[in-house]
């Protein structure tokens, strides 16, 4: 039995300053080391307090996964000590507010909810692109960086990296997760579906919307598995001010079959940022739980057995890209329009889970606010939106796969790049304009997008409008 940790103690060169959390599984200490200026926190599993194999393996998993994660949505890994000595993980200390503290304020106003949900979905998507599924998302594992809207994910002890061995896979007979948040497939020991994290996000949003947990806090395996056949009370039945779109998003995240949820966290973030674009289904209007007859049928059929697990988080993301089609309604010729449509269709048809966002830029003056109404008295924004929908009609895509956006900005390229950044777009398709006269003064939008976009860009160009013109210096 080791002596309890005390402030002032030195562990592997780190000086313990003060304890900030003492739980059943671990202790968190603020620590310092002379050569590191960033604030640090040391996490120590409680292996000495009785022998808890779950705590040890979770610690092993976190020690393996945290060092390979990077970016603003995870704490930076600094050092680790294994079980031979005092086991610990040292990471960047991030000052901020735990999402857990917001539960007390539930129900939250829906604009705040959408912002929180979008931020958490951004963080999940970032981690998913790094091959990791969190598998224990809950309010206490989400931190908002002080003074920002950036969500940081903590506690990767139950996570899975699709290129590293899953140390938890055959370890325990019991489902691994946190009871209120665990996805139905996790109760069946499926640990390789990134959509399990979307379920947990749905539970979190449900809780923040209604002040209640959709599945309670069951303490038995049978209780956990109830969510395989019993649907939750629809949020609007508990909170009359919950809009239809929010219920649509929440209940879609809570679908029992992962295939009926969103495909990616990026899609959830996108929906929450564009509520007016959400295709409302019967989910959004539900006011009560399913009848017992329906539940009994589901139970008998054993929905569980139909669950189809995915293989790799990263590959799933590649199959479900968000494609942004940037259209210049004023400039695109019929021919170029046809080519743009053909390119878009190639990409969408190759990936049946992909989404298309059609966007056009409505230029506003840099100096004065533009009049919202044109000379003929028409609302310009609406006019553009109608034109955009008309343009995209010929793609003949199902409504739930396409959204429309009129971006009002003085700089078209910057607006497109910004939209791509804030909506986790995977691929931009844009037409290269043939007429160079205008471009000579304005600069090529497509080349600026290519240079600055955070993702892949396909530039569609009419034959014969090639490089000679394109290489003209922009003024």
């Amino acid at each position, binding site marked *: 039995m080791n002596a309890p940790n005390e402030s002032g103690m030195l562990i592997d060169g780190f000086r313990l300053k003060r304890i900030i959390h003492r739980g059943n599984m671990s202790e968190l200490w603020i620590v310092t080391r002379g050569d590191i200026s960033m604030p640090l926190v040391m996490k120590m599993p409680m292996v000495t307090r009785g022998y808890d*194999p779950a705590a*040890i*393996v979770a610690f*092993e998993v976190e020690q*393996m996964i945290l060092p390979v994660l990077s970016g603003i949505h995870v704490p930076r890994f600094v050092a680790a000590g*294994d079980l031979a000595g005092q086991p610990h993980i040292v990471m960047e200390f991030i000052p901020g507010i735990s999402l857990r503290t917001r539960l007390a304020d539930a129900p939250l106003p829906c604009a705040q909810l959408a912002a929180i949900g979008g931020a958490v979905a951004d963080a999940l998507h970032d981690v998913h692109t790094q091959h990791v599924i969190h598998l224990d998302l809950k309010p206490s594992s989400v931190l908002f960086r002080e003074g920002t809207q950036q969500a940081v994910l903590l506690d990767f002890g139950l996570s899975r990296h699709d290129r590293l*061995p899953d*140390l938890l896979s055959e*370890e325990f007979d019991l489902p691994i997760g946190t009871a209120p948040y665990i996805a139905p497939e996790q109760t069946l020991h499926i640990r390789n579906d990134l959509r399990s994290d979307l379920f947990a996000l749905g539970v979190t949003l449900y809780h923040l919307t209604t002040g209640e947990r959709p599945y309670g806090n069951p303490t038995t395996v049978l209780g956990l598995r109830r969510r395989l056949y019993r649907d939750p009370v629809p949020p609007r039945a508990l909170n009359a001010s919950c809009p239809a779109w929010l219920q649509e998003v929440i209940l879609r995240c809570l679908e029992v079959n992962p295939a009926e949820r969103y495909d990616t966290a990026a899609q959830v973030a996108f929906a929450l940022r564009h509520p007016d674009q959400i295709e409302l289904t019967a989910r959004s209007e539900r006011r009560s739980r399913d009848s017992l007859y329906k539940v009994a049928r589901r139970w008998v059929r054993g929905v569980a057995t139909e669950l189809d697990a995915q293989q790799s988080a990263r590959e799933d993301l590649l199959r479900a890209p968000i494609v942004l089609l940037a259209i210049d309604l004023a400039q695109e010729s019929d021919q170029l329009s046809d080519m743009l449509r053909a390119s878009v269709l190639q990409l969408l048809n190759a990936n049946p889970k992909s989404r298309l966002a059609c966007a056009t830029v409505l230029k506003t003056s840099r100096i004065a606010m533009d009049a919202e109404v044109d000379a003929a008295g028409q609302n310009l924004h609406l006019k553009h939106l109608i034109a955009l929908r008309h343009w995209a009609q010929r793609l003949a895509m199902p409504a739930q796969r396409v959204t429309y956006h009129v971006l009002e900005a003085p700089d078209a390229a910057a607006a497109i790049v910004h939209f791509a950044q804030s909506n986790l777009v995977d691929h931009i398709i844009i037409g290269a304009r043939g007429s160079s006269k205008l471009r000579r003064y304005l600069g090529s939008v497509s080349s600026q997008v290519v240079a600055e976009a955070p993702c892949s860009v396909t530039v569609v160009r009419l034959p014969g409008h090639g490089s000679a013109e394109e290489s003209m210096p922009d003024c």
Partner: protein
Amino acid sequence: MKIALLADIHANREALAACLQHAQAAGAERFVFLGDIVGYGADPAWVVDCVMEHVQRGSAAVLGNHDAAVVHAAPATMARAAREAIEWTRAQLTPRHLGFLTSLPATLSESDVLYVHANAWAPRAWEYVLSSTEARQSLLATPCAYTFCGHVHEPALYHMNRNAQVSGFLPVPGTAIPLGRQRRWLAIPGSVGQPRDGVLAARYALFDTASTALTYFELPYDYQAALAKTLAAGLPPNIMLKSPRLAGDRR
């Protein structure tokens, strides 16, 4: 220190050269040859020379069943193609080569690591580690935390927790996998010179003793040259060279 793990070279000069070059560029300071240095391939003398040179400079090698068959006699149970290759190989080697092969130990343990060709429970019986069951048997037969072996030509990684539960994992080339000290590991880097899974690539792995991270590699090499030499030598064209698929096609 980074240790390159090279198993089942099977006298494939082109594949071995590709691995050694890659390992040197990746900072390997030590090379451990996990048996089956010869057998099947057309360049036994060159390959044994190469291994001997490395061993003289401080690297290490263990004995494989094909190496044993060359210096003793091919067991009756060995496949006909393999037996023919053994006879041919013996004729290509000098007494110096044969002496070197004879001197190879069946196992080698250094600090916490066991090197062996087939398995730890009966190193000279040449049984394969094909699943978690055999991996468990092998891991329980050694006190070492890390076992590196070959014999099975496809890359694999097994880990055992303190309750002796074993799980298997299919490694992805190029990913550094931290082999935590909280459990025991058995790693098969895959065959350098004779792939059997249809991917015509040379496999090896690099173990970093400082971080205890293991990285598997799958390298392109001139397998057509290796095939041409094998055919020219009158050797049975082996399984590795039958597949039309190229390295990387699997994913």
